[in-house]
């Protein structure tokens, strides 16, 4: 009886397999078939609390790919996007990565969160697939020196340093609190900031809480008692918004400072927080100063009838670089494309971009400090 039941169970498994065998062969690594469309993966938080980031990622890449397809595709083949959702969770990132590997993509634009990009790019690297992340700033992403991993944005050590110098030299703060959300991105950034503050400003609170936390009163009352001049948060806007509202209800006057995860979310962050957002400091490059920015925004608005988020332009540039790489390599073959991307300089709305041997953008120490005034980010100066 028992055996029979096991047999039945195994049969079910077997049938499942027989059924899947019928689907067109999707095996193999990142080589890609010679005919058919060139497949490009896009992976990030398409849904969830960071869905705005996923939307930027998806729409930025889509814009680039549509432009290429309008010009006849790449290498005479059309470009197809394979979009996958990791919900900003690292456990999903590896699964998603495996799916993209199985789908036979040549390269991936993504992921968004460092905690997702790092494990996922291990999979891509293994399969010889190019990874270009538009937004993951954790240093480890490129410090592994994989030849096929690139990043179009800046690094947390640059960003953390900029923030720390601003706190000590411009704000002349004496006491600082540093919080993070315990993720690769948030903790990495907060650690870099705290490291650079060391010896110059007293860090009176250094604490992390889970990325799902929404009640910040226990930390904020501690913060209020500690009487700090400014508090730093390594994390994402979805937590920063309730944190700022709660801080204002508690009457905390010291401003919050944060990184790129909190910069540029007008509807999802600043509008939700209202007046309590004023005074908040962020570090982010001045993308608007680039000559191609206005043109990009115009194209984006025309296509999606919406305002691009902070990383839409980076996603657009990433997809563009990837396709230029395919074109220069003359084949949809991961390692060749990676070599071509290392060799070239690419014209993007962010200006010309070339990569160093780690895969970071060359000569980019460009983080600026912004402050929110009257519900808008205003440049507050580099130093």
């Amino acid at each position, binding site marked *: 009886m028992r055996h029979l039941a096991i047999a039945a169970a195994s049969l079910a498994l077997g049938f499942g397999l027989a059924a899947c065998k019928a689907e067109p062969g999707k095996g193999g690594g990142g080589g890609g078939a010679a005919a058919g469309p060139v497949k490009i993966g896009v992976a990030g938080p398409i849904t969830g609390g960071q869905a705005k980031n996923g939307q930027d990622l998806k729409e930025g890449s889509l814009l680039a790919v549509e432009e290429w397809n309008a010009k006849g595709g790449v290498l005479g083949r059309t470009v197809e996007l394979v979009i996958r959702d990791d919900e900003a969770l690292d456990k999903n990132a590896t699964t998603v990565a495996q799916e993209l590997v199985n789908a036979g993509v040549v390269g991936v634009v993504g992921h968004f969160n460092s905690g997702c990009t790092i494990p996922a790019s291990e999979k891509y690297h293994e399969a010889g697939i190019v990874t270009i992340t538009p937004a993951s700033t954790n240093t480890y992403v490129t410090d592994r020196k994989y030849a096929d991993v690139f990043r179009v944005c800046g690094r947390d050590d640059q960003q953390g340093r900029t923030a720390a110098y601003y706190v000590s030299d411009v704000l002349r703060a004496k006491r600082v609190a540093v919080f993070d959300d315990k993720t690769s991105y948030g903790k990495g950034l907060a650690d870099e900031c705290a490291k650079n503050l060391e010896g110059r400003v007293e860090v009176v609170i250094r604490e992390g809480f889970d990325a799902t936390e929404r009640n910040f009163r*226990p930390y904020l009352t501690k913060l209020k008692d500690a009487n700090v001049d400014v508090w730093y948060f390594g994390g994402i806007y979805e937590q920063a918004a309730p944190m700022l509202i709660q801080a204002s209800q*508690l009457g905390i006057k010291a401003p919050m400072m944060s990184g790129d995860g909190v910069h540029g979310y007008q509807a999802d962050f600043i509008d939700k927080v209202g007046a309590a957002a004023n005074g908040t400091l962020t570090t982010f490059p001045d993308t608007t100063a680039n000559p191609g920015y206005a043109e990009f925004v115009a194209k984006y608005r025309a296509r999606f009838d919406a305002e691009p988020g902070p990383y839409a332009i980076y996603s657009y540039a990433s997809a563009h670089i990837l396709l230029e790489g395919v074109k220069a390599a003359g084949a949809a073959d991961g390692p060749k494309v990676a070599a071509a991307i290392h060799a070239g300089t690419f014209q993007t709305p962010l200006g010309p971009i070339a990569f160093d041997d780690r895969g970071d953008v060359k000569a980019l120490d460009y983080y600026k400090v912004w402050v929110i005034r009257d519900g808008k980010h205003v440049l507050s100066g580099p130093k």
Partner: protein
Amino acid sequence: MLQSLLTGLVQGSIYAIIALGYTMVYGILVLINFAHGEVLMVGAYASVLVYAALTFAGTTASLGVLPCLAVALLAAMGVAGLYGFSLERIAYRPLRHAPSLSPLISAIGMSIFLQNYVRLAQGSAPVYFPAHTAEYGAVFGETNNIQVGPVLVTPLDLFILVLCLLLMAGLYAFVHRTRLGKAMRATSMDKTMAGLVGISVDRVISVTFVIGSVLAAVAGMLLALYTTQAKFDMGFMAGMKAFTAAVLGGIGNLRGAMLGGILLGLAESVGIQFLGADYKEVYAFVVLLLVLVVRPRGILGERVAEKV
């Protein structure tokens, strides 16, 4: 220290309200209602949406914030009650005589279903309580904060505490003073006997679910006010904490759930104050384990004689 006691008390009284729903259902059906947190989430959404609509219409400005909150609360209670009622009819009633773990899985299924249902219907991004309006600030803003010695009391703290106390007292009176309450107690002692003496067991169970859900809706709105937002997955963690609280106090015992909830909130906030935030989610369980080692049925749980 005193400040963290207040924070813990406020958070704890929200836990207590949720835990009451768990403990009532458990008392009658011996079932862990895993989808209770999702009912809370549904209530939170209803309250935020109604309040946001009233804000847009200018009603909060003309009529005042508190009456509008009351309207939002009533709406949330109605919607959550409806969901609690349906939940029992769909997922629990057919399983009343099934093996004891089956309703648990059925409840887990409903919990996953409801989360995704709301995610699809209302989006995966959180919806915010419109806390940035002038009239909201005039009531819950920092200008109304009261400094009592070393403790800062915010109007929101007071609002939550008062509402929770009223609810607990009301529920206690309902269960102990009304006929329906008496029927509920009888059913929780022995379903068969209750049926024999003329109590409509099905009706009592439905009422229990509706009351639990209505309480969850209040907790949902308070949580949305406290954390400033509602999100499709907010019920999960709140539900987990409240479940722990109910067990801590002795599951099935109303006073136990209230006590457990408040103790749990205090443990968390005092823990953060002195031991740091790293193990915040663990403090509650450590307290639970310590209590269970001394009292295996929770603080107020009775030692039930085993039926042989």
